[in-house]
């Protein structure tokens, strides 16, 4: 049986501090080797989001059948947010939005994000945000923070990247998904201990867990292998690997 694979979490941008190239062709080679059909790609690293969104658009333009564009905006320039959101989605064709509060130093429920959330709620789009909780030293994207947002902005589908990351965060993420039907969990992490995928699927349900790689920070082959080799049903694997993404992003299958 053919298994569509959609990677919900990958990045454009030259990660020079880790010796990672910003090379779309190399990116596609890894996708091919891993078995990834399409990668949702964002660029969240520039203080000026226009630069990052243009980089994403470049990837999509070069491989339109392999990449799905994901927009980004920063909470530090609220006066620019709506204009850039409209450019990213209406002109560049972004499919959903990625936020990275940890890198930008504001918690996900900071007031600076409200214009973004209101705009996204009007359109009913997917927002994927970094989510991580290890201990109380950093709660900027602790999964519990998303519960109030999901209950307030009910048309947004909230996708928690890394599903809370470490085990305490994963437990919070499952609780958040159980509390809010519009919260979904994305799988990539370098913290994931044995049994993590099984825990997420059992806790949140196979319909609410989506595969992501964090390419090129983490190799799609490893992250995809976490799903393929998990002790879950074949049906659940197919949902996590791609069927849920197709449904959530309303892709044609």
């Amino acid at each position, binding site marked *: 049986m053919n298994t569509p694979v959609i990677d919900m979490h990958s990045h454009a941008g030259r990660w020079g501090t880790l010796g990672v190239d910003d090379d779309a062709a190399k990116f596609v080679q890894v996708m091919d080797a891993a078995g990834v059909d399409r990668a949702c790609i964002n660029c969240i690293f520039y203080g000026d989001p226009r630069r990052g969104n243009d980089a994403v658009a470049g990837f999509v333009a070069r491989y339109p059948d392999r990449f799905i564009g994901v927009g980004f905006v920063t909470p530090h320039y609220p006066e620019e947010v709506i204009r850039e959101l409209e450019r990213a989605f209406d002109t560049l064709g972004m499919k959903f939005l990625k936020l990275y509060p940890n890198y930008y130093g504001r918690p996900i429920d900071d007031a600076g994000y409200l214009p973004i959330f209101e705009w996204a709620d009007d359109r009913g789009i997917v927002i994927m945000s970094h989510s991580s909780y290890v201990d109380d030293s950093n709660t900027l994207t602790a999964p519990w923070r998303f519960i109030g947002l999901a209950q307030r902005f009910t048309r947004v589908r909230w996708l928690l990247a890394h599903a809370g990351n470490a085990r305490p965060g994963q437990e919070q993420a499952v609780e958040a998904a159980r509390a809010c039907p519009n919260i979904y969990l994305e799988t990539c992490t370098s913290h994931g201990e044995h049994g993590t995928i099984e825990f997420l699927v059992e806790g949140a349900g196979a319909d609410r867990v989506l595969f992501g790689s964090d390419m090129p920070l983490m190799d799609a082959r490893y*992250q995809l292998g976490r799903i393929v080799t998990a002790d879950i049903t074949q049906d659940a694997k197919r949902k996590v690997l791609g069927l849920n993404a197709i449904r959530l992003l309303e892709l044609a299958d």
Partner: protein
Amino acid sequence: MVTVGSVGQLDLNFKPSVPVFDANVALGRRHDRRVRVDTVEGTLEAMGRAGIGRALVYAPHAVAFDGREGNQVLLETIQGEPSLVPQYVCSPATDDLDSFAALVMEHGVRSIRMAPNVHGYPFRDWVVKPWLEWLAAENLTLWMLVDQVDPAELHDVARDHPEVNIVLSEVHYSHVTWVIPLLHSLPNVRVEISRFVIAGGVSRLIEAIGAERILFGSRFPDSPMAPQLYNLHRSGLSEASLAAICSGNLERLLGME
């Protein structure tokens, strides 16, 4: 219209195509949290699911609290299970080398793990030299967790003891800035790749140091056993390189080929 499934054709029942010897498994209860698998039975079950035939195991208690006691607990836990190969933990700053060496020889242990940071000593010759000379004399291999040692100290000691084989374990993408230059510089250092999951990481390592200095490890139960095997099997390796990384290199290091 979006086309999906063109690359697909995944084997959702993936198993490794070569024998696998896991170079990094913790076995037993931890003091700081409950891990999902802490028994021989659970470890063997996970190995069976992942297609792993043997695993090099150490006791978390030996790292966290007391090496001698933890090593003994490990042996009692394993009870001679042939697929679980014991690795001892030592603290050169406090352990008696002669009695430790006697236990190692008595139980046929072939590798040692040091944890300088958690055990509170600098990895310097004026602490570890007699231990490294003993390792060299007995052809035992030293495992060093990447976050347990200062890179400069590791470099200097490994350089000054080229006859000692050292395995740098749990290298993460955040260590890539110094680990690859260190591996370039020191042919007696090998790398265990349980946490090295940066995109194209395996290829980068092979290009830098060759397949013969790379060891598959899982870091179980803090990581699942099988994903890195899936990565290795999809990395375009020759059958010989794949077999070497998955088991041959470790067998050779431990004298078990």
